[in-house]
């Protein structure tokens, strides 16, 4: 037994000692916890941690196999994301007890706060006292047992799993229904109660999902889609596309869902240009050798930074939206180019991890595929708040793509139209967010950069929160970014342009004198090296490419990503379709494209008279339109429209 006294050491030191003791197989006793947060997070060994008193937020979070015993109370997020293992709490638990668990047994002898078991996937959460508002909210699987009062709206928006209620039912949530419990289920609960020595002789009611909201009622009529390039940038009044939308909606009675990004013309990087006439600049035979492009991202607070051979990353795209093969191709290409890849929502595959030399692991509100083991093998951790194509919305993965294998990785029922939560269970404000960031850092020993993905909305406020909460970098995503599936109107009319996003972010950080305290990776419709240089000159520390990377790898921009029958094998989970995708071949194409980006960045940087990409600045830019000038504050020089840059840089 190892004893750790938190009146003598910090939680950070305490957790290091807990992990070290666990690795050697010793049980641990924690004295004077005094409701401190993050006790035991990241522990992955089968030892017992006994907390003599009360613990704060995320007790035992992001752990596997360990057993925790807390003598009195715990705060929010008890056992967050636990795989196997157990927690027994002698007193009460705060909100979201058992959030996102994936197999653990969690026993609370007193009451639990609101939203107990939110987005849980597997395992058992037992509340011997009363539950509170919306227990079982958005749960995907597993079992909740409540011996006391249910609280209001039990099982709100649950899509899987079971809730057994021993006490009075206050009210049922949306899409939850009462059903009969089988004797075998009751016997199993009795055995569970006996095992944890909880006396209860009453009977149980069972609550499950009613199945009314798991899928869209009517599917879209199949039509030959209008190519993206036909309708994008056109009038948005009565064109062919608008007509088609009206027709489809007359059949299905709801908004349309499609893949790809917004098509409405809004000011973009094409509306700014380089101040200097570089058409005649001499760039030599190989500008790549003459320009320093190496970029470190994520190290400003002491974590090990991502080391990029050029200021470019791959934008987050999920295995789920994309096929395993497509993710593998992108990962291989990113490794060849010496840049970082990103998992997006939905977990990390071995193929992707093996292929990518540097991989950022993204955490979303549904905690789909999120777990401590993949965190430990990531090179960066990212909290997704929103994305440029559909700020304020969660991911959408239509039933066709939610295969058995994919559902297993994500811990959800197969074959549902997955509408991921738009909010995190434990991030309801900047104050909660700071505790969440700390949990990720504690769990991984402060080794990894922690970033935030922000879809551009109220950037001047959001970026201040990002820096004050201590993120290492932000992935800032404008509305020209694409998505695997989103409401069509949302993509066109929600969000703000990438150009506005970076300029607002820069201004907001300058206004509080904190620009040096965070790094910005800009994305959202960045197509090539020319756009990349403009983004860097506007202030970004690096840029990220999503759509252009998948187009380089064979995407034909049909916008049917959400359907799941992608003819190229990119945006599908159907093995027959995926077979068409030759990951190694496409990886070479993506890599070759990335090298063209590298050459363009180097050539333009050199032509502008710089030796290092870090020397790029707003002084290198002018605005070509009044709108772009207004947004960026750059000088308005419409005459520069006539310069054929592609000829110059090609």
């Amino acid at each position, binding site marked *: 037994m190892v004893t750790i006294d938190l009146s003598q050491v910090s939680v950070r030191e305490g957790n290091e000692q807990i992990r070290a003791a666990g690795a050697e197989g010793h049980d641990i006793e924690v004295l004077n916890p*005094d409701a401190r947060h993050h006790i035991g997070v990241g522990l992955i060994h089968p030892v017992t941690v006994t907390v003599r008193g009360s613990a704060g937020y995320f007790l035992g979070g992001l752990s596997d196999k360990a057993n925790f015993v807390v003598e009195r109370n715990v*705060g929010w997020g008890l056992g967050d994301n636990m795989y196997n293992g157990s927690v027994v709490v002698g007193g009460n638990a705060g909100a979201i007890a058992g959030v996102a668990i994936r197999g653990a047994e969690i026993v609370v002898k007193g009451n639990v706060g609101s939203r107990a078991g939110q987005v849980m996937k597997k395992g058992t959460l037992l509340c011997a006292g009363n539950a*509170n508002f919306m227990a079982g909210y958005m749960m995907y699987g597993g079992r909740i047992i409540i011996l006391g009062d249910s609280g209001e709206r039990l099982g709100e928006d649950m899509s899987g799993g079971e809730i057994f209620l021993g006490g009075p039912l206050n009210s049922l949530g949306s899409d939850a229904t009462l059903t009969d419990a089988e004797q075998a289920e009751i016997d199993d609960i009795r055995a569970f109660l006996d095992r944890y020595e909880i006396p209860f002789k009453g009977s149980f009611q069972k609550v499950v999902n009613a199945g009314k909201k798991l899928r869209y009622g009517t599917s879209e009529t199949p039509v030959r889609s209008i190519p993206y390039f036909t309708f994008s940038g056109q009038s948005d009044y009565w064109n062919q596309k608008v007509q088609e939308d009206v027709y489809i909606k007359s059949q299905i009675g709801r908004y349309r869902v499609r893949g790809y990004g917004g098509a409405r013309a809004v000011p973009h990087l094409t509306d700014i240009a380089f101040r200097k006439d570089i058409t005649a600049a001499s760039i030599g035979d190989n500008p790549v050798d003459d320009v320093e492009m190496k970029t470190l991202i994520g190290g400003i607070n002491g974590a090990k930074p991502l080391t990029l051979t050029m200021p470019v990353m791959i934008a987050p795209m999920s295995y789920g939206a994309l096929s395993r093969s497509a993710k593998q191709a992108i990962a291989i290409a990113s490794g060849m180019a010496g840049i970082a890849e990103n998992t997006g929502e939905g977990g990390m595959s071995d193929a992707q991890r093996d292929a990518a030399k540097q991989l950022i692991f993204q955490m979303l509100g549904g905690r789909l595929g999120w777990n401590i083991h993949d965190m430990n093998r990531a090179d960066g951790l990212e909290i997704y708040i929103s994305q440029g194509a559909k700020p304020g919305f969660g991911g959408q993965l239509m039933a066709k793509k939610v295969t058995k294998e994919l559902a297993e990785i994500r811990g959800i029922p197969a074959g549902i139209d997955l509408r991921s939560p738009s909010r995190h269970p434990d991030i*309801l404000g900047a*104050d909660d967010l700071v505790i969440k960031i700390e949990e990720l850092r504690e769990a991984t020993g402060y080794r990894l950069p922690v970033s935030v993905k922000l879809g551009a909305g109220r950037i001047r406020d959001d970026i201040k*929160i990002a820096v*004050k909460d201590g993120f290492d970098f932000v992935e800032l995503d404008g509305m020209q970014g694409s998505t695997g599936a989103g409401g069509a109107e949302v993509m066109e009319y929600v969000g703000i342009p990438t150009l506005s996003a970076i300029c607002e972010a820069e201004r907001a950080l300058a206004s509080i004198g904190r620009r040096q305290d965070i790094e910005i990776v800009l994305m959202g419709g960045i197509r090539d090296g020319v756009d990349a240089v403009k983004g860097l000159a506007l202030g970004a520390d690096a840029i990220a490419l999503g759509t252009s990377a998948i187009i380089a790898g064979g995407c034909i921009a049909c916008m049917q990503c959400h359907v799941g029958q992608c003819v190229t094998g990119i945006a599908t989970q159907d093995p027959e379709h995926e077979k068409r995708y030759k990951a190694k071949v496409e990886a070479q194409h993506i890599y070759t494209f990335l090298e063209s980006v590298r050459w363009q960045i180097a050539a333009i940087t050199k032509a502008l008279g710089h030796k290092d990409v870090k020397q790029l600045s707003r002084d290198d830019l002018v605005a070509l339109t009044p709108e772009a000038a207004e947004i960026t504050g750059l000088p308005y020089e419409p005459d520069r429209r006539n310069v054929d840059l592609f000829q110059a840089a090609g």
Partner: protein
Amino acid sequence: MCGIAGILFKHMDIDRDTGKALIDMLDGCQHRGPDSTGFALYGDDHPGEIKMRFYVGTGNEAGDAIGRLREVFAEQGAELVDDERIGSAYRAVVKFSGDLQKFSYAVEHAAKVMSIGESLEIVKDIGTAHDVDDGYDIHHFRGTHGLGHVRLATESDVKPEAGHPFWATGFSDVAIVHNGQITNYWKMRRRLERRGFEFVTDNDSELIAVYLADKMSQGIPLKEALRTSIDDMDGTFSFLVSTKDEIGYAKDHLAAKPMIMFENDDLIAIASEEVSLNRLFPGKALDTREPPPGSYNTWSRST
């Protein structure tokens, strides 16, 4: 975006370490808001006297503001008993027996009012609980009850006057600390403005304070005002309110903002996180309670 704390010693003993207790509680949850820290403290009161605190800054503008204030005091028939400059604040004790609401609107035009009351004094500034204590000597403050707040500034600037607690402008001795946001702010504010109330800031917390104080001035008990506030305010909120003799809380129906409380024969303490409550009782596991969604309550000091 913040952390809140409140404490009330139940027995009418003015000689309690309220200042130190609030510093400890706020230090425990400083991670929730590193930008600014504030205290609402209820000390000894003297019949016929009111205490006033203003934000005047630290440069030459402070002297000008104090000059203007002294003129307004004279115009309004308030007799200055005592005054001093502390940090960026100006504290004045006056004898006044007229219409307090009218008086407070008048002084507001001379300088930024932080609080007015027979026993209430609000102290708030940029920095941590310990920073503010260093500047304003909070830990020596003794009294029966008080509130505290740590703030992470998001939508508004990091300025001392934008911090919490908020005084219910125009109403003696009412203060509030709030975690969350009121989404029908402008609607509620316009409703109150039409009835002649003035607002000093655009902060939603001030609105809650004025809303509650208005109800109380109509003879509605604080507890009843808290009950109606939960239905009248939209948004996510957990807030604490204090008057000369009471503290109370309200929490919205969605329970999105944390709150936890500990009560024994001697005191009631409420905070955003248990770690703050535990600062009052190091090494001891507390029998705490989390208030349910949509709940409210009040506690009085016994007289």
